[in-house]
């Protein structure tokens, strides 16, 4: 900051500074160090993922001998074949897809039903409803009262236990409400109303088509939450037929329980013992792959969601 004068003596350079920014020595060091740090952080993210994928394609002998670092050792598809014969993974996948699809649909419908009236400035009772929906965000009954309610409603051990709790995320509802409020001009509602358009028709003809972006964002948030949910299943379900994938994953990954009796192939069942360590890697890949593959393409929607969420009214 001290060499203002030297800059002033070379006014010609100003243009150059703006475009090409010739770097001082300090800056060059800074950019190099910054790039290296960012690269290192990226590597720290990538390394464990690469290691897990590589191990899942390696022979169990080399995994057990601790030979796998970055590349598969004695590459094989055997582990994947074994997992494909493991019934629990299939049952879990089926249930998770069911809960995710039905749950997300319900989430989006309920969230819109709630967000739309709250976004309309002239909706009388807006304040009352806003408070009603806001309070549970900062205070709740907690685990035990929730459980008793679910039990009393006879929802334990039903697929509904995976769909109904959290059917409206109040946070997502507020994000949606803010979006509708900010992106659809009030004058549009006014004009529609003068033309005799009812609030319901206004919703279907104008709000819904204009809210596609936010619907995509919250649908993805909800879907990921359903896909990754193990808490509700863990608390509310104890029938294995209803278990979502995450609960089977917990058994396999955290509790190290492989149930050989559900293997379709008895030969594979016998190999299971030696394979256990390697199969965990496979299970991680199988469970995470769908989200990881879709993510780079839908990233911008998620990021957009964070932005909208950070804007207040």
């Amino acid at each position, binding site marked *: 900051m001290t*060499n*203002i004068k030297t*800059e002033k003596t070379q006014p010609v350079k100003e243009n150059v500074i703006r475009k090409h920014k010739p770097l*001082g020595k*300090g*800056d060059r060091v*800074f*950019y190099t160090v*910054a790039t290296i740090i*960012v690269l290192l*952080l990226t590597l720290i*993210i*990538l390394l*464990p*993922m690469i290691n897990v994928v590589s191990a899942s394609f390696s022979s169990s002998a080399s995994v*057990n001998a*601790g*030979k796998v670092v970055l590349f598969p050792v004695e590459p094989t598809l055997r582990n994947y074949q074994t997992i494909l014969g493991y019934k629990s993974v299939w049952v879990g996948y089926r249930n998770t897809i069911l809960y995710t699809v039905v749950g997300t649909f319900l989430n989006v419908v309920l969230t819109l*039903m709630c967000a*739309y*009236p709250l976004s309309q400035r002239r*909706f*009388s009772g807006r304040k009352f*409803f806003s408070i*009603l929906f*806001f309070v*549970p965000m*900062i*205070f709740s*009954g907690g*685990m*035990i*009262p*929730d*459980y008793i*309610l679910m039990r009393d409603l006879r929802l334990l051990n039903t697929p509904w236990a995976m769909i109904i709790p959290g059917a*409206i995320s109040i946070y997502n509802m507020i994000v949606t409400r803010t979006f509708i409020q900010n992106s659809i001009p009030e004058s549009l509602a006014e004009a529609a109303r003068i033309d005799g358009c009812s*609030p*319901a028709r206004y919703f279907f003809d104008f709000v819904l088509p204009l809210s596609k972006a936010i619907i995509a964002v919250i649908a993805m948030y909800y879907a*990921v939450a359903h896909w*990754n*949910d*193990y*808490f509700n299943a863990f608390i509310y379900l104890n029938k294995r037929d209803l278990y979502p994938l*995450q609960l089977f*994953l917990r058994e396999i*990954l*955290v509790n190290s329980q492989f149930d050989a009796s559900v293997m379709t192939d008895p030969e594979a069942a016998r190999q299971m013992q030696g394979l256990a*360590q390697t199969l*965990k*890697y496979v299970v*991680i890949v199988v*469970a*995470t792959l769908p*989200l990881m593959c879709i*993510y780079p393409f839908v990233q911008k929607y*998620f990021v957009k969601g*964070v*932005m909208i969420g*950070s804007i207040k009214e």
Partner: protein
Amino acid sequence: MEMSVNKLRKVLKRDWQLYLFMLIPTVYIIIFNYIPMTGLQLAFRKYTPANGIWGSPWVGLANIKKFFNSYMFWRVLSNTFILSVYGLVCMQVIPIGFALLINAIELPRFKKITQTIVNLPHFISTVVLVGMLMQVFNSRTGLYGVIYEAIHGTYPSDLFGELGAFRHLYIASTVWQNFGWQSIIYIAALAGVDPQLHEAAQVDGATRLQRIRFVDLPHIKPTITILLIMGIGNIMSVGFEKAFLMQNSLNIRYSELISTYVYRIGLSGTGNSDFSYATAIGLFNALINLILILSANTICKKVSDTSLW
């Protein structure tokens, strides 16, 4: 009177469809959010299945007192607090640092790719994350064990059996999973810096590092303040999921948090489940959280004119 009835009729005529929209969400929120709040009275009753929430005998503050006098009180309280503060510090400093650095780098392609990569782990489920943690830090077959062996010639001891390692593993994996995601908000804020400020600073001969210090950082200060205060507001509400998955008999002294303890007392089915006692602990936690978040919001309003509501 006449007037207000008329007004009500007019409002209903005009907005009845909107009320119809609100009907199901309102019923839902009352059943699934407000009814459980009435269940909190269990904290002051002695629950028996036959009498239910509304019929079990009152016991006053007995359950709360029992918790205060229990040796677990300070343990779960301090475990929750320490883990939370540790996480809060790391999850503020690292994402901010990352955002400042990546914002300074002027290679659009490189920035985009690295950002996509560091955002990826955010979508890994808690179960899979803990599973990965156990695999990668396995002292024999995991990446950690293999590299350690290559350097030291011997295998390391099992980290999951070490009490002292629990917090570091917990926070390191949280940072690994979420620092990229957390930095999005700062990167967005940094995109709003007026380029003229940078140009002016450059003309004045400021280095890039000085521009971070005097241009970028002041610009995102309000964002940092809000997120920090909100983080403090949530300090006693560390979730159940991850700590529970990482728990084992060797690290339980550090890994038992308020939320996992509520589960253990109320629902785990080991020993005798005590709904009333568990609810009392949950209520205590919910009240602390409420006080913290309300104070955080008030402070936030004072400091930065912004608030959560």
